[in-house]
């Protein structure tokens, strides 16, 4: 399933799932949505780790490591911030 066609299929299905899921998000939660989605694209960390693991020479390795640091900030920071926001919404419904 890693062939071009397979990936295209996954992409198209993911577009539909994304629109379907996100259109149900309540207006109240738009800020956490943005921040949560933000955290999710931090998964680029996986890509950063993979390319750094294959890097040759100091320049490539350094660049790769920069990507790892940036992606980690994105992912970890994103989830922590979203959690902090959502904490305030918990159990307020009366």
């Amino acid at each position, binding site marked *: 399933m890693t062939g071009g066609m397979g990936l295209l299929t996954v992409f198209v299905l993911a577009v539909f799932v994304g629109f379907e899921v996100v259109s149900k998000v309540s207006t*109240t939660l738009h800020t956490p949505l943005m921040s949560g989605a933000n955290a*999710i694209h931090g998964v680029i960390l996986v890509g950063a780790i993979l390319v750094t693991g294959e890097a040759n020479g100091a320049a490539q390795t350094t660049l790769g490591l920069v990507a790892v640091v940036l992606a980690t900030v994105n992912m970890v920071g994103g989830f922590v911030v979203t959690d902090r926001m959502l904490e305030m919404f*918990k159990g307020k419904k009366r």
Partner: protein
Amino acid sequence: MSKQTWVDLAYLVAAICFILALKGLSSPKSARNGNLIGAAGAAIAVVTVLVSADLRHLPLILAAIAVGSAAAVPTSRRVPMTAMPQLVALFNGVGGGAAAIVAFLELKSAGGGFPLVASLFTVMVGSVSFSGSVVTFAKLQELMTTRPVVLPGHPILFAGAGGGAVALAAVAFAKGGASSSATWCAVGVAVLSLALGVLFVLPVGGADVPIVISLLNAFTGLAVAASGYVLGNVLLLIAGTLVGASGTILTRLMATAMGRPITSTLFGALRGGSTAGATTAGSDRPVRSATPDDVAILLAYATKVIVVPGYGLAVAQAQHTVRELADLLAARDVEVLYGIHPVAGRMPGHMNVLLAEANVPYEQLKEMDEVNPQFATTDVVLVIGANDVVNPAARQPGTPISGMPILDVDQAQNVIFLKRSMRPGFAGIDNELLYQTNTTLLFGDAKDSLTKVVSALKNL
């Protein structure tokens, strides 16, 4: 099962976690658990890649992850809720930057064809997202002017950077990803795209910044999805696409909320005219100002009060004081509602988050369409640090906010503005509402003013 199957399975689980994380946001009750599931998915994905792939420089990679976490966790824990928009913008930017670097390093293995197109696309979009987000951060953090900035020859510079980046990408494509000239072209693409990102965000001002954050979020999502395609990694592809979809939907929703096409939001200032006559200086026209005691009396003897919060509420951290005031009024049988404009604050839903922090019940938060018909029967509207979203200038043509639906605050019996100064709002235009005869101004920091009103109310 082979090792690869296990790896693919783990990625699939992570992808499901991400979908569940977004699905959890459909209700405030399930949202927090959803986010934790998402974080678990991310952890699964990272552990999987660390144990399964044959990685060089593993100690360095682990150290880099440690450095990133050490930088991110304390910042995200400590930053006040009011500074969230810029933090989200910054996190979005670094993600875009990471995607651009990943794609750049993958150029050689991409070789040619679609994977090479996808890597060049990611270098470009990731760089735009990075520099654009940094400028957005600088604007929100007030490290630079928050007003639209238009450089001399801006449209030409913009077209030049964009066209140049695409042209260099085309050259790199023609040379093939493995060649060293392609690497240098890609460096050029990255540099021009960074410039493009800056030029893209500089002219955006006014209440339009939330739209840009959301759009850049979608950009980063697309960049991550494209890099997933390059790496043949299904998880990156799915995660990036989900984010792209959510960013697109949010951007569209907000553009609709502002009543104009997204292109006019982004490029309005470039066409000129729209910022002409805008001023940052306060006007010296007469206004009516009052003391906290006057305001307290006005509020105490009202039957219906609508609070309209804006960015000033966030800056002053006044959400808890507002809640206290609302409770006191409720004890006097005054009906208190909150009118939330879709783009109040600097992020969609910004006010909802702040008021939730202060335990304001959801039922009192009314969206624009719901609250607008109610202003005519309202005794007092308390505008706290909002400006552009209640500015009647939006109803006339020729202003930066023309056509934006606003809260019809001017229809209420009395309007009380809590303002720090006579300076105009983010859009930089004067607000006619301030000079209306039924408008009263209470100058000062929103929190200080509210605290005084609260104590005055207690003494009544």
